[in-house]
């Protein structure tokens, strides 16, 4: 059975997660220890800043994994008790699927988690702790996560500052091909947003002040050009999208600057994103017609609304995941019962053969007709006797009735 023990942003503090994290370089060793110390056949460890989880195959109970997790980090077993979840079987599978589908993420629908899960499996594979159970789980997990993502909108609306800026730009402009982006200040956040805009076909101009070199560097990286800050009004009249993020203490772009630029723009809209704190753009700029100004608070409001949209979609994604969990479990159970049925059949055949031999010895030589009758009669007895247990086993497997299955097993001495 597959078990999982872990802590996540839902159950623990960041401090605890930090203490329990597995640095990448220690992972192969830790994976080996899961097998040696906890007696698991297979192991996989997912360690990100929002969760630390140990998956194991071939255990009936998650307790040894919980003990390992505590011991490995030098904690008393009871210390993790209130924060760690211990799941087994169906619950563990469901958890694995939900995590990969980003339904358990802090930001629902974020895309990184799938990559992190992928990496965790790759590490387990190269450490040699991936067996058939976890390998199948891996395959099913990716299938479930991809379905949840492509069939619902959990990943649809932007939530990070730079991607919200791009989304807003696309709510104003039809596309970004050939749009002029003006960066005021060469900060990291501006660069991030600009890179996404440029990737969508926009061209960038970076305005530099005292540190003109920095502006030139960023311009080169973006395949655009740099201009001195004194050209602000000129550049404003040419720009479609302005991203301002200087460290200046006061206003950098005034209402007058924008009004002048607007005159030269002939009605085309101007989209300004002010990601500076304190703000670069005069708040009055909002009142200029055809000008759309967003500061960090506004971006946050859009991001929150988008997150609400994602949570609505998450309801559907949960259904997709649930469906995938059912399918996987059905498959697992059908596999579980197959060797049992084969064994049952083999035992029946063995007894039949034995009895035929005994009968032959007693009866002496038989005619072909008699031989045939003996075969047919014994085969019919075995088949009729095994028919009901076979059907019952299949049903019990389908319904997940482990108790019925073990009862039949015991009755048949298997």
């Amino acid at each position, binding site marked *: 059975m597959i078990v999982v023990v872990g802590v996540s942003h839902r159950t623990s503090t960041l401090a605890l997660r930090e203490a329990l994290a597995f640095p990448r370089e220690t992972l192969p060793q830790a994976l080996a220890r899961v097998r040696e110390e906890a007696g698991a056949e297979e192991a996989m460890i997912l360690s990100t800043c929002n969760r630390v989880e140990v998956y194991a195959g071939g255990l009936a109970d998650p307790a040894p994994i919980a003990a390992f997790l505590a011991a490995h980090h030098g904690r008393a077993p009871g210390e993790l008790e209130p924060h760690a979840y211990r799941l087994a079987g169906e619950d563990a599978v469901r958890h694995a699927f939900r995590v990969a589908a980003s339904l358990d993420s802090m930001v629902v629908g974020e895309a990184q988690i799938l990559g992190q899960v992928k990496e965790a499996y790759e590490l387990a594979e190269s450490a040699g702790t991936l067996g058939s159970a976890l390998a199948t789980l891996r395959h099913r997990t990716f299938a479930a996560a991809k379905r949840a993502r492509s069939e619902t909108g959990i990943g649809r609306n932007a939530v990070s500052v730079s991607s919200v800026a791009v989304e807003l730009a696309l*709510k104003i402009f039809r596309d970004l091909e050939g749009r002029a982006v003006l960066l005021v200040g060469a900060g990291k956040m501006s660069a991030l947003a600009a890179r996404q805009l440029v990737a969508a076909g926009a061209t960038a101009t970076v305005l530099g002040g005292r540190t003109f070199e920095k502006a030139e560097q960023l311009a080169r990286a973006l395949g655009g050009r740099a201009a001195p800050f004194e050209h602000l009004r000129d550049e404003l009249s040419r720009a479609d999208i302005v991203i301002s993020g200087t460290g200046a203490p006061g206003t950098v772009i005034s209402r007058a600057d924008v009004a002048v630029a607007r005159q030269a723009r002939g009605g085309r*809209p101007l989209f300004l994103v002010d990601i500076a704190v304190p703000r670069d753009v005069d708040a009055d700029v909002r009142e200029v017609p055809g000008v759309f100004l967003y500061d960090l608070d506004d971006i946050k409001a859009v991001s929150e609304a988008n997150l609400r949209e994602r949570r609505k979609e998450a309801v559907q994604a949960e259904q997709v995941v649930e469906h995938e969990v059912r399918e996987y479990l059905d498959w697992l159970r059908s596999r579980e019962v197959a060797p049992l049925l084969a064994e049952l059949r083999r035992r029946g055949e063995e007894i039949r053969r034995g009895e035929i031999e005994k009968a032959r010895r007693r009866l002496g030589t038989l005619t072909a007709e008699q031989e045939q009758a003996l075969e047919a009669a014994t085969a019919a007895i075995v088949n009729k006797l095994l028919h009901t247990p076979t059907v019952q086993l299949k049903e019990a497997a389908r319904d997940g009735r482990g108790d019925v299955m073990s009862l039949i097993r015991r009755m048949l001495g298997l």
Partner: protein
Amino acid sequence: MGSRVYLLLTLLFYTGGAVHVLLHAATRRKLLSLTTTTAMLLGFATHTAALALRWNEAGRFPAVGLRDISSFLAWTLVLVFLVMWMRSREDVLGLAVHPTAFLLLVVANLSRPEDKADPYLQSLFLPVHATLAFLGYSALFVAFAMGVLYLIQERELRSRSPHTFYYLIPSLEGCDRTGGRAAAVGFPLLTLAIVTGMFWSAAARGHYWTGDAKEWTAVVAWLIYLAMLVARHRSGWGGRRGAWLGIAGFAAVALTFLWVTVLASPVGAAAAR
């Protein structure tokens, strides 16, 4: 009886298209799916058949009486949609057009056909004038709808806490451009409709200009669209003002239409009776 059945079939198809586009809007999925487009295309085909049969049954061009008028208007509207959508692939067109076509078809199916003979209506001016006018109305309706969507989206963007429409409506530029194109198509059609209307009036009653209300509203609408197109041509962007002009122009067009179809007016009233 033939046209009745086809008109009912058309209603079924358009209902499918309208319900589908609204459902997709509510669940934030891509507005126009293959199902919607197929339903509208099939509907358009049965609709065309219904109009042809009706023309034959009535013995005159089917643009007289509430039933024929709403049916024909829905047909031109779907035609305008199909042409514009093929060119721009702006799915939001369907959000404006499909439910409207559905409502017009409901009205058409519920009203009784008008079969009174009238010498005015045998004139060749009826098909020419009505086709030009209805195509124009339809294109201008699209410009109106895009104007409304533009203003809503602009409001959403300015409110900085997006609601449903933020997610539904495409970019401001998309609305602006599609609305501008629709007006650019609708304006010459409206011009030709006014001119043929004047000729019809002259042929029927000897006056090009009678000075009644519908003529004045038509001229006001024409002037509004002229202003809108000139402004767009000069700045390349209609914006808020363009959106408002599109709405105001359509209000004038709608008044003209109501006068023709509902209220007294020599030629139009004959058409309405």
